[in-house]
């Protein structure tokens, strides 16, 4: 009887003196567009699916809880504010057979500038495309030229050239599928990705 009590006491002491397991919290939050994704938390044999706004899984708790937006900001404010700006994409269109932007796309260039200004050190990918009018290889060249023209605008406004990559995909990746030799304005484009 006494021995059992001693063993129990030793067991309790070991239990109390063990290094505390880390406390872990996982929270799914809605995106700026209001959509909430899903995270599956596997902790040993326990599996929790978080798919509601602010659904929260904690170590040592089998129930999924719901935190308030204020509690989340309290715990994660500095971390959330360190998230990089989400990548932004733009499409500029060209006058047929040329590397000259349409009037609308010259205006759209202002939005590209705004996205660039938001970022301390942006990196930019510029990919040029053509419609199917003309020879395949000529279109490869024209698409590369369109990308270079846009790169030229960006360098002019002060983006370092080494932060910009360009590529030309010719008529190989049309936005709108067409037969050969079709004048399709939506395919005469440059796609710009700003990160």
């Amino acid at each position, binding site marked *: 009887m006494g021995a059992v009590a001693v063993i129990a006491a030793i067991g309790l002491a070991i239990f109390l003196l063990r290094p505390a397991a880390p406390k872990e919290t996982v929270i799914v939050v809605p995106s700026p567009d209001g959509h909430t994704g899903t995270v599956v*938390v596997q902790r040993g044999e326990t599996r929790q699916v978080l798919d509601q706004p602010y659904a929260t899984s904690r170590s040592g708790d089998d129930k999924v809880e719901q935190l308030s937006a204020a509690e989340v900001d309290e715990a994660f404010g500095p971390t959330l504010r360190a998230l990089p700006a989400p990548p932004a994409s733009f499409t500029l269109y060209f006058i047929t057979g040329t590397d000259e932007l349409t009037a609308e796309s010259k205006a759209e260039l202002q939005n590209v500038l705004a996205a660039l200004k938001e970022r301390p050190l942006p990196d930019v990918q510029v990919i040029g495309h053509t419609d199917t009018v003309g020879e395949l290889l000529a279109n490869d060249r024209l698409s590369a030229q369109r990308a270079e023209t846009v790169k030229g605008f960006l360098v002019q406004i002060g983006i370092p050239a080494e932060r910009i990559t360009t590529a030309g995909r010719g008529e190989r990746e049309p936005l709108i599928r067409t037969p050969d030799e079709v004048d399709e304005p939506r395919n005469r484009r440059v796609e710009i990705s700003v990160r």
Partner: protein
Amino acid sequence: MRWTIAAVLLGVSTWATASDVGEIKVAKGAAYLERGEARLPVKVGMPVQQSDKVVTGADGTVGITFADNSLLSVGPDSVLAIDRYVFDSTTYAGQFDSTLSKGTLAVISGKLVKQSPDAMRVHTPSAIMGVRGTEFLVKVER
């Protein structure tokens, strides 16, 4: 042939070499990257590689954009290891594993997860998170 390879690499990203998988976009306070034996103080524009460890001090925060447009940020007093990062910019296939051993982490998933829902996993001392999309937060208190 060599030029073809160089051209392909240049076409994929502005980042300096093929081993660069992301770039530091936000850096505040005390924070560094552990790369092998080296401790590199973080600054905006610095490339991030597979096997790097992000370590922040009491006032440090770091934000990283990865090749697939995954966004990660690490809060103060944190340690995050980039265990594995593979991304094919043509097929969007790959795998992204990271481990938060202490501190806080915010994640917005990118093209990897959009392409294949199990491509991104975050590990903590007691759990594995499988990411099926978008934005979530992790905290490990010791």
